[in-house]
Protein backbone atom coordinates (compact mmCIF):
# COMPACT_ATOMS: atom_id res chain seq x y z
CA UNK A 1 0.00 0.00 0.00
CA UNK A 2 1.38 3.38 -0.92
CA UNK A 3 1.69 6.24 1.49
CA UNK A 4 1.52 9.88 0.58
CA UNK A 5 1.38 13.20 2.37
CA UNK A 6 -1.93 14.11 0.77
CA UNK A 7 -5.31 13.66 2.45
CA UNK A 8 -7.20 10.56 1.54
CA UNK A 9 -10.59 11.48 0.00
CA UNK A 10 -11.86 8.09 -0.93
CA UNK A 11 -10.84 4.63 0.06
CA UNK A 12 -12.00 1.10 -0.68
CA UNK A 13 -11.32 -1.86 1.60
CA UNK A 14 -11.79 -5.40 0.37
CA UNK A 15 -14.57 -4.39 -1.96
CA UNK A 16 -16.24 -7.14 -3.97
CA UNK A 17 -19.12 -7.36 -6.44
CA UNK A 18 -21.12 -10.23 -7.84
CA UNK A 19 -23.29 -10.16 -10.93
CA UNK A 20 -25.41 -13.29 -10.46
CA UNK A 21 -22.97 -16.15 -10.82
CA UNK A 22 -20.06 -13.95 -11.91
CA UNK A 23 -17.79 -12.72 -9.15
CA UNK A 24 -16.52 -9.71 -11.08
CA UNK A 25 -14.53 -8.07 -8.28
CA UNK A 26 -12.87 -9.59 -5.23
CA UNK A 27 -11.17 -7.97 -2.27
CA UNK A 28 -10.12 -4.76 -3.96
CA UNK A 29 -8.49 -2.09 -1.79
CA UNK A 30 -7.63 1.29 -3.19
CA UNK A 31 -7.28 4.85 -2.05
CA UNK A 32 -7.66 8.17 -3.81
CA UNK A 33 -5.89 11.23 -2.41
CA UNK A 34 -6.26 14.91 -2.98
CA UNK A 35 -4.09 16.15 -5.79
CA UNK A 36 -3.14 12.70 -6.99
CA UNK A 37 -3.98 10.57 -9.98
CA UNK A 38 -4.59 6.87 -9.41
CA UNK A 39 -4.39 4.90 -12.62
CA UNK A 40 -6.34 1.64 -12.80
CA UNK A 41 -5.09 -0.68 -15.49
CA UNK A 42 -5.94 -4.19 -16.55
CA UNK A 43 -7.05 -6.58 -19.23
CA UNK A 44 -10.44 -6.50 -20.88
CA UNK A 45 -13.04 -7.80 -18.47
CA UNK A 46 -10.71 -7.42 -15.48
CA UNK A 47 -13.34 -5.47 -13.56
CA UNK A 48 -12.20 -1.88 -13.98
CA UNK A 49 -15.57 -0.51 -15.06
CA UNK A 50 -17.27 -2.48 -12.32
CA UNK A 51 -14.94 -0.87 -9.80
CA UNK A 52 -15.67 2.66 -10.89
CA UNK A 53 -19.39 2.02 -11.18
CA UNK A 54 -19.34 1.15 -7.48
CA UNK A 55 -17.54 4.37 -6.62
CA UNK A 56 -19.88 6.37 -8.83
CA UNK A 57 -22.93 4.93 -7.09
CA UNK A 58 -24.27 3.16 -10.19
CA UNK A 59 -23.96 -0.33 -8.68
CA UNK A 60 -23.88 -1.20 -5.00
CA UNK A 61 -20.93 -3.31 -3.85
CA UNK A 62 -21.76 -6.67 -2.35
CA UNK A 63 -18.68 -7.00 -0.08
CA UNK A 64 -16.26 -4.71 1.78
CA UNK A 65 -16.46 -1.01 2.65
CA UNK A 66 -16.22 2.25 0.76
CA UNK A 67 -15.20 5.35 2.70
CA UNK A 68 -15.56 8.94 1.51
CA UNK A 69 -13.88 11.64 3.61
CA UNK A 70 -13.59 9.18 6.47
CA UNK A 71 -17.28 8.30 6.40
CA UNK A 72 -18.44 4.85 5.39
CA UNK A 73 -20.97 4.94 2.56
CA UNK A 74 -23.02 2.66 0.35
CA UNK A 75 -24.33 4.75 -2.49
CA UNK A 76 -27.76 3.78 -3.68
CA UNK A 77 -27.79 6.22 -6.56
CA UNK A 78 -25.29 8.22 -8.64
CA UNK A 79 -26.96 11.35 -7.30
CA UNK A 80 -25.44 10.68 -3.87
CA UNK A 81 -21.97 10.32 -5.32
CA UNK A 82 -22.45 13.51 -7.36
CA UNK A 83 -23.57 15.36 -4.26
CA UNK A 84 -20.28 14.45 -2.65
CA UNK A 85 -18.41 15.94 -5.57
CA UNK A 86 -17.62 12.69 -7.35
CA UNK A 87 -18.02 13.16 -11.12
CA UNK A 88 -17.67 10.29 -13.54
CA UNK A 89 -17.08 9.66 -17.22
CA UNK A 90 -18.53 6.25 -18.00
CA UNK A 91 -17.11 3.96 -20.62
CA UNK A 92 -20.57 3.40 -22.02
CA UNK A 93 -20.96 7.14 -22.23
CA UNK A 94 -24.19 7.98 -20.44
CA UNK A 95 -25.42 10.61 -22.84
CA UNK A 96 -29.05 10.68 -23.96
CA UNK A 97 -28.92 10.35 -27.76
CA UNK A 98 -32.16 12.19 -28.56
CA UNK A 99 -31.31 15.24 -26.44
CA UNK A 100 -29.33 18.22 -27.65
CA UNK A 101 -25.69 18.71 -26.84
CA UNK A 102 -26.14 21.49 -24.34
CA UNK A 103 -28.99 19.74 -22.57
CA UNK A 104 -26.84 16.67 -22.22
CA UNK A 105 -23.96 18.72 -20.92
CA UNK A 106 -26.01 20.17 -18.09
CA UNK A 107 -28.29 17.18 -17.53
CA UNK A 108 -28.90 16.70 -13.82
CA UNK A 109 -27.02 19.94 -13.04
CA UNK A 110 -29.22 22.42 -14.83
CA UNK A 111 -28.59 26.11 -14.26
CA UNK A 112 -31.70 28.13 -13.57
CA UNK A 113 -32.65 31.74 -13.47
CA UNK A 114 -35.70 33.44 -11.94
CA UNK A 115 -37.19 32.32 -8.67
CA UNK A 116 -39.86 30.13 -7.14
CA UNK A 117 -42.33 28.64 -9.56
CA UNK A 118 -40.99 30.87 -12.29
CA UNK A 119 -37.47 29.50 -12.12
CA UNK A 120 -36.57 28.56 -15.63
CA UNK A 121 -33.59 27.11 -17.42
CA UNK A 122 -30.90 29.65 -18.14
CA UNK A 123 -30.61 28.45 -21.69
CA UNK A 124 -28.33 31.22 -22.87
CA UNK A 125 -25.82 30.61 -20.13
CA UNK A 126 -25.86 26.86 -20.62
CA UNK A 127 -25.46 27.04 -24.38
CA UNK A 128 -22.59 29.50 -24.03
CA UNK A 129 -20.80 27.47 -21.36
CA UNK A 130 -21.18 24.24 -23.32
CA UNK A 131 -19.73 25.91 -26.39
CA UNK A 132 -16.81 27.30 -24.44
CA UNK A 133 -15.96 24.05 -22.71
CA UNK A 134 -16.09 22.07 -25.93
CA UNK A 135 -13.95 24.60 -27.76
CA UNK A 136 -11.41 24.32 -24.97
CA UNK A 137 -11.26 20.59 -25.60
CA UNK A 138 -10.42 21.33 -29.20
CA UNK A 139 -13.38 19.72 -30.84
CA UNK A 140 -15.57 21.44 -33.33
CA UNK A 141 -19.28 20.84 -32.92
CA UNK A 142 -21.21 22.96 -35.36
CA UNK A 143 -24.60 23.29 -33.70
CA UNK A 144 -25.19 22.80 -29.97
CA UNK A 145 -28.87 22.20 -30.55
CA UNK A 146 -28.20 19.05 -32.51
CA UNK A 147 -29.00 15.76 -30.82
CA UNK A 148 -26.03 13.90 -29.42
CA UNK A 149 -27.06 10.85 -31.42
CA UNK A 150 -25.84 12.52 -34.61
CA UNK A 151 -22.27 13.03 -33.38
CA UNK A 152 -19.21 10.91 -34.03
CA UNK A 153 -18.02 8.55 -31.30
CA UNK A 154 -15.13 10.81 -30.34
CA UNK A 155 -17.27 13.92 -30.24
CA UNK A 156 -19.65 12.23 -27.83
CA UNK A 157 -16.79 11.12 -25.65
CA UNK A 158 -15.49 14.68 -25.53
CA UNK A 159 -18.84 15.96 -24.29
CA UNK A 160 -18.90 13.41 -21.50
CA UNK A 161 -15.38 14.31 -20.45
CA UNK A 162 -15.91 18.04 -20.65
CA UNK A 163 -19.01 17.66 -18.51
CA UNK A 164 -17.30 15.62 -15.79
CA UNK A 165 -14.37 18.00 -15.65
CA UNK A 166 -16.67 20.99 -15.48
CA UNK A 167 -18.74 19.54 -12.64
CA UNK A 168 -16.11 17.47 -10.81
CA UNK A 169 -15.60 19.00 -7.40
CA UNK A 170 -13.54 16.56 -5.35
CA UNK A 171 -13.06 13.33 -7.20
CA UNK A 172 -12.94 12.83 -10.94
CA UNK A 173 -13.35 9.34 -12.37
CA UNK A 174 -12.52 8.67 -15.98
CA UNK A 175 -13.16 5.26 -17.55
CA UNK A 176 -11.07 4.95 -20.71
CA UNK A 177 -11.73 8.55 -21.65
CA UNK A 178 -9.23 8.69 -24.47
CA UNK A 179 -10.18 5.40 -26.13
CA UNK A 180 -12.16 6.98 -28.94
CA UNK A 181 -10.09 10.15 -29.15
CA UNK A 182 -7.60 11.39 -31.67
CA UNK A 183 -4.01 12.21 -30.78
CA UNK A 184 -4.77 15.89 -30.32
CA UNK A 185 -7.88 15.41 -28.23
CA UNK A 186 -6.16 12.77 -26.11
CA UNK A 187 -3.44 15.27 -25.38
CA UNK A 188 -5.99 17.83 -24.33
CA UNK A 189 -7.70 15.37 -22.03
CA UNK A 190 -4.43 14.39 -20.40
CA UNK A 191 -3.65 18.04 -19.87
CA UNK A 192 -7.06 18.52 -18.27
CA UNK A 193 -6.58 15.55 -16.01
CA UNK A 194 -3.25 16.94 -14.88
CA UNK A 195 -4.86 20.32 -14.29
CA UNK A 196 -7.64 18.77 -12.21
CA UNK A 197 -5.01 17.06 -10.10
CA UNK A 198 -3.16 20.32 -9.61
CA UNK A 199 -6.41 21.94 -8.54
CA UNK A 200 -6.51 19.45 -5.68
CA UNK A 201 -8.95 16.90 -7.00
CA UNK A 202 -8.45 13.19 -6.56
CA UNK A 203 -8.52 11.46 -9.92
CA UNK A 204 -9.10 7.86 -10.93
CA UNK A 205 -7.95 7.31 -14.47
CA UNK A 206 -8.65 4.09 -16.30
CA UNK A 207 -6.79 3.43 -19.49
CA UNK A 208 -5.30 0.70 -21.64
CA UNK A 209 -2.48 2.93 -22.75
CA UNK A 210 0.51 2.60 -20.42
CA UNK A 211 2.11 5.65 -22.01
CA UNK A 212 -0.87 7.80 -21.14
CA UNK A 213 -0.99 6.32 -17.66
CA UNK A 214 2.68 6.85 -17.00
CA UNK A 215 2.53 10.40 -18.32
CA UNK A 216 0.16 11.57 -15.60
CA UNK A 217 -0.27 8.89 -12.89
CA UNK A 218 0.92 9.06 -9.28
CA UNK A 219 -0.21 5.56 -8.35
CA UNK A 220 -0.82 2.51 -10.43
CA UNK A 221 -3.22 -0.28 -9.65
CA UNK A 222 -3.45 -3.27 -11.91
CA UNK A 223 -6.54 -5.46 -11.81
CA UNK A 224 -6.36 -9.04 -12.94
CA UNK A 225 -9.54 -11.12 -13.11
CA UNK A 226 -11.14 -9.07 -10.38
CA UNK A 227 -8.12 -9.04 -8.02
CA UNK A 228 -5.54 -6.35 -7.47
CA UNK A 229 -2.33 -7.78 -8.87
CA UNK A 230 -0.16 -4.69 -8.48
CA UNK A 231 -0.42 -1.54 -6.40
CA UNK A 232 2.53 0.75 -6.65
CA UNK A 233 3.41 4.42 -6.52
CA UNK A 234 5.06 6.15 -9.44
CA UNK A 235 8.44 6.17 -7.70
CA UNK A 236 8.51 2.38 -7.45
CA UNK A 237 7.86 1.49 -11.04
CA UNK A 238 9.14 2.14 -14.55
CA UNK A 239 7.13 2.46 -17.75
CA UNK A 240 8.56 -0.78 -19.04
CA UNK A 241 7.65 -2.74 -15.98
CA UNK A 242 4.17 -1.22 -15.98
CA UNK A 243 3.63 -2.21 -19.60
CA UNK A 244 4.88 -5.68 -18.88
CA UNK A 245 2.69 -6.14 -15.83
CA UNK A 246 -0.34 -4.92 -17.74
CA UNK A 247 0.01 -7.24 -20.65
CA UNK A 248 1.25 -10.31 -18.89
CA UNK A 249 4.98 -9.98 -19.44
CA UNK A 250 6.56 -12.75 -21.41
CA UNK A 251 3.46 -13.24 -23.51
CA UNK A 252 3.74 -9.74 -24.87
CA UNK A 253 7.43 -10.02 -25.64
CA UNK A 254 6.77 -12.96 -27.88
CA UNK A 255 3.89 -11.19 -29.55
CA UNK A 256 5.66 -7.98 -30.35
CA UNK A 257 8.54 -9.98 -31.75
CA UNK A 258 6.21 -11.92 -33.95
CA UNK A 259 4.47 -8.79 -35.12
CA UNK A 260 7.60 -6.95 -36.08
CA UNK A 261 8.73 -10.04 -37.96
CA UNK A 262 5.47 -9.96 -39.92
CA UNK A 263 5.80 -6.27 -40.64
CA UNK A 264 9.41 -6.59 -41.66
CA UNK A 265 8.40 -9.24 -44.13
CA UNK A 266 5.83 -6.94 -45.65
CA UNK A 267 8.14 -3.98 -45.75
CA UNK A 268 10.52 -6.12 -47.76
CA UNK A 269 7.73 -6.46 -50.35
Amino acid at each position, binding site marked *: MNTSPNTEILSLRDVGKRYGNVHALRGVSLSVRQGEITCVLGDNGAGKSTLIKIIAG*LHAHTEGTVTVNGEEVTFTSPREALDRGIATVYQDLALVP*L*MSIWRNFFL*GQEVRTGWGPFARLDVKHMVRTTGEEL*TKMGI*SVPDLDR*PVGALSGGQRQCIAIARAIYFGAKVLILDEPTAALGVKQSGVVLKYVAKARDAGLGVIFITHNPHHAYLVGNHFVILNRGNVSLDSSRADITLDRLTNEMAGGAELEALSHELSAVTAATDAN
Partner: protein
Amino acid sequence: MSAPLTPTTHAGGAATSADDRVRTRPLLSVVLSRPEIGSLIGAVALFVLFLVVAPTLRSGAALLTVLYSSSTIGIMAVSVALLMIGGEFDLSAGVAVTTASLTASMVAYQLHLNVWVGVLVALVLALAVGLFNGWLLVRTGLPSFIITLGSFFMLTGLNLGVTKVVTGGVSSPTISDMDGFASAKAFFDYTLPIGNGLRIPILFWVALVAVATWILLRTRVGNWVFASGGDPAAARAVGVPVKATKIGLFMAVGFTAWLLGMHNLFAYSNAQSGNGVGNELYYIIAAVVGGCLMTGGYGSAIGAAIGALIYGVVTNGIVYAGWQADWNRLFLGAMLVVATIVNLVVKNQAAKR
Protein backbone atom coordinates in the same frame (compact mmCIF):
# COMPACT_ATOMS: atom_id res chain seq x y z
CA MET B 1 -36.53 2.49 -38.06
CA SER B 2 -34.79 5.81 -37.90
CA ALA B 3 -35.82 7.69 -34.81
CA PRO B 4 -36.31 11.34 -35.41
CA LEU B 5 -33.65 13.42 -33.76
CA THR B 6 -33.84 16.86 -32.08
CA PRO B 7 -36.05 17.32 -29.07
CA THR B 8 -35.40 21.05 -29.01
CA THR B 9 -34.51 23.60 -31.58
CA HIS B 10 -35.00 26.96 -29.95
CA ALA B 11 -32.39 29.21 -28.48
CA GLY B 12 -28.74 29.74 -29.23
CA GLY B 13 -27.01 26.90 -30.92
CA ALA B 14 -23.78 28.83 -31.26
CA ALA B 15 -21.16 26.74 -32.97
CA THR B 16 -18.09 25.86 -30.96
CA SER B 17 -15.86 26.83 -33.81
CA ALA B 18 -16.62 27.60 -37.39
CA ASP B 19 -16.80 24.49 -39.54
CA ASP B 20 -17.01 24.97 -43.26
CA ARG B 21 -18.80 21.69 -43.68
CA VAL B 22 -21.94 22.99 -42.06
CA ARG B 23 -24.44 25.13 -43.90
CA THR B 24 -26.71 27.22 -41.75
CA ARG B 25 -30.08 25.56 -42.06
CA PRO B 26 -32.67 27.72 -43.73
CA LEU B 27 -35.28 28.92 -41.26
CA LEU B 28 -37.93 26.94 -43.09
CA SER B 29 -36.04 23.74 -42.50
CA VAL B 30 -35.47 24.51 -38.82
CA VAL B 31 -39.18 25.10 -38.43
CA LEU B 32 -40.01 21.96 -40.36
CA SER B 33 -37.90 19.84 -38.06
CA ARG B 34 -39.90 20.64 -34.93
CA PRO B 35 -41.61 17.48 -33.70
CA GLU B 36 -45.11 18.88 -34.05
CA ILE B 37 -44.87 20.58 -37.41
CA GLY B 38 -45.53 17.43 -39.42
CA SER B 39 -48.74 16.72 -37.60
CA LEU B 40 -49.72 20.37 -37.88
CA ILE B 41 -49.47 20.17 -41.64
CA GLY B 42 -51.42 16.90 -41.52
CA ALA B 43 -54.09 18.63 -39.44
CA VAL B 44 -54.31 21.59 -41.77
CA ALA B 45 -54.58 19.31 -44.80
CA LEU B 46 -57.43 17.36 -43.20
CA PHE B 47 -59.14 20.53 -42.10
CA VAL B 48 -59.06 21.97 -45.59
CA LEU B 49 -60.35 18.71 -46.99
CA PHE B 50 -63.33 18.75 -44.67
CA LEU B 51 -63.94 22.45 -45.25
CA VAL B 52 -64.36 21.54 -48.88
CA VAL B 53 -66.55 18.44 -48.51
CA ALA B 54 -68.53 19.51 -45.43
CA PRO B 55 -70.03 22.99 -45.80
CA THR B 56 -71.46 22.82 -42.26
CA LEU B 57 -67.94 22.88 -40.86
CA ARG B 58 -67.53 26.42 -42.16
CA SER B 59 -69.86 27.79 -39.48
CA GLY B 60 -68.55 29.12 -36.18
CA ALA B 61 -70.84 26.82 -34.24
CA ALA B 62 -69.41 23.76 -35.92
CA LEU B 63 -65.86 24.94 -35.26
CA LEU B 64 -66.67 25.32 -31.59
CA THR B 65 -68.14 21.82 -31.52
CA VAL B 66 -64.97 20.46 -33.09
CA LEU B 67 -62.84 22.35 -30.60
CA TYR B 68 -64.86 21.18 -27.64
CA SER B 69 -64.84 17.61 -28.82
CA SER B 70 -61.04 17.82 -29.36
CA SER B 71 -60.53 19.35 -25.94
CA THR B 72 -62.11 16.40 -24.12
CA ILE B 73 -59.44 14.19 -25.68
CA GLY B 74 -56.78 16.90 -25.69
CA ILE B 75 -56.82 17.66 -21.96
CA MET B 76 -55.77 14.10 -21.24
CA ALA B 77 -53.52 13.86 -24.28
CA VAL B 78 -51.28 16.55 -22.82
CA SER B 79 -50.37 14.58 -19.72
CA VAL B 80 -50.37 11.28 -21.57
CA ALA B 81 -47.89 12.81 -24.03
CA LEU B 82 -45.64 14.00 -21.20
CA LEU B 83 -45.78 10.51 -19.74
CA MET B 84 -44.94 9.00 -23.10
CA ILE B 85 -41.98 11.36 -23.53
CA GLY B 86 -40.95 10.13 -20.10
CA GLY B 87 -41.01 6.60 -21.47
CA GLU B 88 -44.20 5.21 -19.95
CA PHE B 89 -47.85 4.44 -20.74
CA ASP B 90 -51.00 4.78 -18.75
CA LEU B 91 -53.79 2.47 -19.78
CA SER B 92 -55.83 3.47 -16.74
CA ALA B 93 -56.12 7.09 -17.88
CA GLY B 94 -59.55 6.61 -19.45
CA VAL B 95 -61.31 5.04 -16.47
CA ALA B 96 -59.49 7.32 -14.01
CA VAL B 97 -61.58 10.18 -15.41
CA THR B 98 -64.73 8.30 -14.50
CA THR B 99 -63.31 7.36 -11.11
CA ALA B 100 -62.84 11.06 -10.39
CA SER B 101 -66.42 11.92 -11.42
CA LEU B 102 -67.89 9.07 -9.41
CA THR B 103 -65.85 9.86 -6.34
CA ALA B 104 -66.80 13.52 -6.29
CA SER B 105 -70.49 12.87 -6.79
CA MET B 106 -70.82 9.94 -4.41
CA VAL B 107 -68.77 11.49 -1.62
CA ALA B 108 -70.83 14.66 -1.78
CA TYR B 109 -74.14 12.87 -2.12
CA GLN B 110 -73.76 10.05 0.35
CA LEU B 111 -72.17 12.16 3.05
CA HIS B 112 -74.39 15.16 2.39
CA LEU B 113 -71.42 17.44 1.97
CA ASN B 114 -70.86 20.52 -0.08
CA VAL B 115 -70.02 19.50 -3.63
CA TRP B 116 -66.65 21.20 -3.39
CA VAL B 117 -65.62 18.75 -0.69
CA GLY B 118 -66.34 15.93 -3.10
CA VAL B 119 -64.31 17.75 -5.74
CA LEU B 120 -61.32 17.94 -3.41
CA VAL B 121 -61.60 14.33 -2.31
CA ALA B 122 -61.69 13.35 -5.97
CA LEU B 123 -58.53 15.35 -6.60
CA VAL B 124 -56.73 13.58 -3.77
CA LEU B 125 -57.90 10.22 -5.03
CA ALA B 126 -56.92 10.93 -8.64
CA LEU B 127 -53.45 11.96 -7.55
CA ALA B 128 -53.27 8.87 -5.34
CA VAL B 129 -54.08 6.64 -8.31
CA GLY B 130 -51.22 8.26 -10.23
CA LEU B 131 -48.94 7.87 -7.24
CA PHE B 132 -49.88 4.22 -6.91
CA ASN B 133 -49.17 3.53 -10.59
CA GLY B 134 -45.86 5.33 -10.47
CA TRP B 135 -44.81 3.82 -7.18
CA LEU B 136 -45.59 0.29 -8.34
CA LEU B 137 -43.68 0.98 -11.53
CA VAL B 138 -40.47 2.15 -9.92
CA ARG B 139 -40.76 -0.35 -7.11
CA THR B 140 -41.20 -3.44 -9.27
CA GLY B 141 -39.53 -2.36 -12.48
CA LEU B 142 -42.36 -4.00 -14.42
CA PRO B 143 -43.33 -2.44 -17.74
CA SER B 144 -45.93 0.28 -17.31
CA PHE B 145 -48.15 -1.50 -19.80
CA ILE B 146 -48.70 -4.30 -17.28
CA ILE B 147 -48.92 -2.10 -14.21
CA THR B 148 -51.46 0.26 -15.67
CA LEU B 149 -53.35 -2.55 -17.35
CA GLY B 150 -53.75 -3.98 -13.87
CA SER B 151 -54.94 -0.67 -12.49
CA PHE B 152 -57.19 -0.21 -15.53
CA PHE B 153 -59.00 -3.43 -14.70
CA MET B 154 -59.04 -2.67 -11.01
CA LEU B 155 -60.44 0.83 -11.47
CA THR B 156 -63.05 -0.44 -13.92
CA GLY B 157 -64.07 -3.04 -11.36
CA LEU B 158 -64.11 -0.53 -8.53
CA ASN B 159 -66.09 2.00 -10.52
CA LEU B 160 -68.80 -0.55 -11.17
CA GLY B 161 -68.68 -2.45 -7.92
CA VAL B 162 -68.54 0.51 -5.58
CA THR B 163 -71.21 2.42 -7.46
CA LYS B 164 -73.46 -0.61 -7.33
CA VAL B 165 -72.90 -1.11 -3.63
CA VAL B 166 -73.34 2.56 -2.78
CA THR B 167 -76.20 3.55 -5.08
CA GLY B 168 -77.70 0.21 -6.08
CA GLY B 169 -77.43 1.21 -9.74
CA VAL B 170 -74.70 1.75 -12.29
CA SER B 171 -74.71 5.52 -12.25
CA SER B 172 -74.07 8.00 -9.51
CA PRO B 173 -77.04 10.02 -8.23
CA THR B 174 -77.73 13.42 -9.70
CA ILE B 175 -76.11 16.11 -7.59
CA SER B 176 -77.50 19.14 -9.39
CA ASP B 177 -79.55 20.24 -6.39
CA MET B 178 -76.76 20.05 -3.85
CA ASP B 179 -74.86 22.81 -2.09
CA GLY B 180 -72.01 24.17 -4.12
CA PHE B 181 -73.17 22.59 -7.36
CA ALA B 182 -73.94 25.91 -9.00
CA SER B 183 -70.55 27.40 -8.18
CA ALA B 184 -68.68 24.25 -9.16
CA LYS B 185 -70.61 24.09 -12.42
CA ALA B 186 -69.85 27.73 -13.05
CA PHE B 187 -66.18 26.85 -12.85
CA PHE B 188 -65.89 23.41 -14.42
CA ASP B 189 -68.61 23.80 -17.02
CA TYR B 190 -68.60 27.51 -17.75
CA THR B 191 -69.57 28.59 -21.22
CA LEU B 192 -68.05 31.81 -22.49
CA PRO B 193 -70.46 33.91 -24.52
CA ILE B 194 -68.35 33.77 -27.65
CA GLY B 195 -70.07 32.69 -30.83
CA ASN B 196 -72.42 29.86 -30.01
CA GLY B 197 -70.73 29.50 -26.65
CA LEU B 198 -67.13 28.57 -26.05
CA ARG B 199 -66.99 25.88 -23.41
CA ILE B 200 -64.36 26.12 -20.75
CA PRO B 201 -62.58 22.79 -21.36
CA ILE B 202 -61.18 24.42 -24.47
CA LEU B 203 -59.48 27.00 -22.26
CA PHE B 204 -58.30 24.34 -19.80
CA TRP B 205 -56.80 22.54 -22.75
CA VAL B 206 -54.99 25.58 -24.11
CA ALA B 207 -53.68 26.41 -20.65
CA LEU B 208 -52.46 22.88 -20.05
CA VAL B 209 -50.66 22.80 -23.38
CA ALA B 210 -48.96 26.10 -22.59
CA VAL B 211 -47.89 24.99 -19.13
CA ALA B 212 -46.70 21.60 -20.36
CA THR B 213 -44.71 23.18 -23.17
CA TRP B 214 -43.10 25.59 -20.74
CA ILE B 215 -42.23 22.75 -18.39
CA LEU B 216 -40.81 20.57 -21.14
CA LEU B 217 -38.64 23.19 -22.79
CA ARG B 218 -37.80 25.68 -20.09
CA THR B 219 -37.58 23.89 -16.77
CA ARG B 220 -35.32 21.40 -15.13
CA VAL B 221 -38.16 18.93 -14.76
CA GLY B 222 -38.72 19.04 -18.50
CA ASN B 223 -35.12 18.12 -19.07
CA TRP B 224 -35.54 15.22 -16.69
CA VAL B 225 -38.65 14.04 -18.51
CA PHE B 226 -36.82 13.89 -21.85
CA ALA B 227 -33.84 12.17 -20.24
CA SER B 228 -35.92 9.66 -18.26
CA GLY B 229 -37.65 8.59 -21.43
CA GLY B 230 -34.68 8.83 -23.78
CA ASP B 231 -32.21 6.79 -21.78
CA PRO B 232 -33.16 6.09 -18.17
CA ALA B 233 -29.84 4.43 -17.37
CA ALA B 234 -27.84 7.37 -18.65
CA ALA B 235 -30.16 9.82 -16.93
CA ARG B 236 -29.77 8.05 -13.62
CA ALA B 237 -26.01 7.95 -14.05
CA VAL B 238 -25.80 11.73 -14.27
CA GLY B 239 -28.00 12.19 -11.24
CA VAL B 240 -31.45 12.73 -12.70
CA PRO B 241 -34.12 11.56 -10.23
CA VAL B 242 -35.66 9.22 -12.76
CA LYS B 243 -38.00 7.51 -10.34
CA ALA B 244 -39.40 10.73 -8.90
CA THR B 245 -39.84 12.11 -12.41
CA LYS B 246 -41.84 9.10 -13.51
CA ILE B 247 -44.01 9.12 -10.41
CA GLY B 248 -44.63 12.83 -10.98
CA LEU B 249 -45.71 12.16 -14.55
CA PHE B 250 -48.22 9.56 -13.46
CA MET B 251 -49.59 12.04 -10.98
CA ALA B 252 -49.87 14.64 -13.73
CA VAL B 253 -52.07 12.17 -15.59
CA GLY B 254 -54.09 11.83 -12.41
CA PHE B 255 -54.47 15.60 -12.25
CA THR B 256 -55.79 15.97 -15.78
CA ALA B 257 -58.08 12.97 -15.23
CA TRP B 258 -59.52 14.83 -12.27
CA LEU B 259 -59.95 18.04 -14.27
CA LEU B 260 -61.75 16.30 -17.12
CA GLY B 261 -63.72 14.19 -14.65
CA MET B 262 -64.98 17.32 -12.92
CA HIS B 263 -66.00 18.88 -16.21
CA ASN B 264 -67.90 15.75 -17.17
CA LEU B 265 -69.58 15.55 -13.79
CA PHE B 266 -70.78 19.14 -13.77
CA ALA B 267 -71.75 19.10 -17.40
CA TYR B 268 -73.81 15.92 -16.99
CA SER B 269 -74.85 16.23 -13.30
CA ASN B 270 -74.11 12.56 -12.74
CA ALA B 271 -71.58 9.93 -13.74
CA GLN B 272 -71.99 6.53 -15.39
CA SER B 273 -69.76 3.90 -13.83
CA GLY B 274 -69.07 2.17 -17.15
CA ASN B 275 -67.82 5.26 -18.92
CA GLY B 276 -64.27 6.07 -19.91
CA VAL B 277 -63.25 2.55 -20.86
CA GLY B 278 -61.35 2.66 -24.12
CA ASN B 279 -60.69 6.40 -24.08
CA GLU B 280 -57.10 5.81 -22.94
CA LEU B 281 -56.38 4.60 -26.45
CA TYR B 282 -57.61 7.85 -27.97
CA TYR B 283 -55.28 9.79 -25.68
CA ILE B 284 -52.36 7.63 -26.74
CA ILE B 285 -53.39 7.97 -30.37
CA ALA B 286 -53.44 11.76 -30.08
CA ALA B 287 -49.97 11.77 -28.55
CA VAL B 288 -48.49 9.42 -31.14
CA VAL B 289 -50.16 11.12 -34.10
CA GLY B 290 -48.79 14.37 -32.69
CA GLY B 291 -45.25 13.07 -33.01
CA CYS B 292 -44.45 11.55 -29.61
CA LEU B 293 -42.23 8.49 -29.80
CA MET B 294 -43.77 5.40 -28.17
CA THR B 295 -40.30 4.46 -26.96
CA GLY B 296 -39.95 7.74 -25.07
CA GLY B 297 -37.56 10.66 -25.13
CA TYR B 298 -39.14 12.59 -27.96
CA GLY B 299 -42.31 14.56 -28.50
CA SER B 300 -44.15 17.72 -27.54
CA ALA B 301 -47.31 18.87 -25.80
CA ILE B 302 -48.28 20.98 -28.78
CA GLY B 303 -47.95 17.93 -30.98
CA ALA B 304 -50.31 16.01 -28.72
CA ALA B 305 -52.76 18.90 -28.92
CA ILE B 306 -52.59 18.78 -32.69
CA GLY B 307 -53.12 15.03 -32.52
CA ALA B 308 -56.27 15.61 -30.49
CA LEU B 309 -57.37 18.23 -32.98
CA ILE B 310 -56.86 15.84 -35.87
CA TYR B 311 -59.01 13.36 -34.04
CA GLY B 312 -61.71 15.97 -33.45
CA VAL B 313 -61.64 17.24 -37.03
CA VAL B 314 -61.85 13.78 -38.52
CA THR B 315 -64.53 12.30 -36.28
CA ASN B 316 -66.74 15.37 -36.52
CA GLY B 317 -65.81 16.09 -40.11
CA ILE B 318 -67.05 12.69 -41.21
CA VAL B 319 -70.41 13.43 -39.61
CA TYR B 320 -70.59 16.93 -41.08
CA ALA B 321 -69.72 15.55 -44.48
CA GLY B 322 -72.71 13.26 -44.12
CA TRP B 323 -70.72 10.18 -45.01
CA GLN B 324 -72.32 6.80 -44.44
CA ALA B 325 -71.92 5.72 -40.81
CA ASP B 326 -70.98 2.21 -41.92
CA TRP B 327 -67.81 3.44 -43.49
CA ASN B 328 -66.74 6.09 -41.02
CA ARG B 329 -64.14 3.91 -39.39
CA LEU B 330 -62.65 3.20 -42.77
CA PHE B 331 -62.33 6.95 -43.34
CA LEU B 332 -60.96 7.43 -39.84
CA GLY B 333 -58.29 4.80 -40.40
CA ALA B 334 -57.35 6.10 -43.82
CA MET B 335 -57.08 9.68 -42.55
CA LEU B 336 -54.95 8.59 -39.63
CA VAL B 337 -52.48 6.90 -41.91
CA VAL B 338 -52.54 9.79 -44.36
CA ALA B 339 -51.96 12.37 -41.63
CA THR B 340 -48.99 10.45 -40.33
CA ILE B 341 -47.53 9.94 -43.76
CA VAL B 342 -47.79 13.66 -44.43
CA ASN B 343 -45.98 14.13 -41.13
CA LEU B 344 -43.25 11.78 -42.26
CA VAL B 345 -42.82 13.33 -45.67
CA VAL B 346 -42.47 16.74 -44.06
CA LYS B 347 -39.84 15.40 -41.66
CA ASN B 348 -37.88 13.82 -44.46
CA GLN B 349 -37.99 16.99 -46.50
CA ALA B 350 -36.74 18.91 -43.48
CA ALA B 351 -33.91 16.45 -42.89
CA LYS B 352 -32.75 16.77 -46.47
CA ARG B 353 -32.14 20.49 -46.25
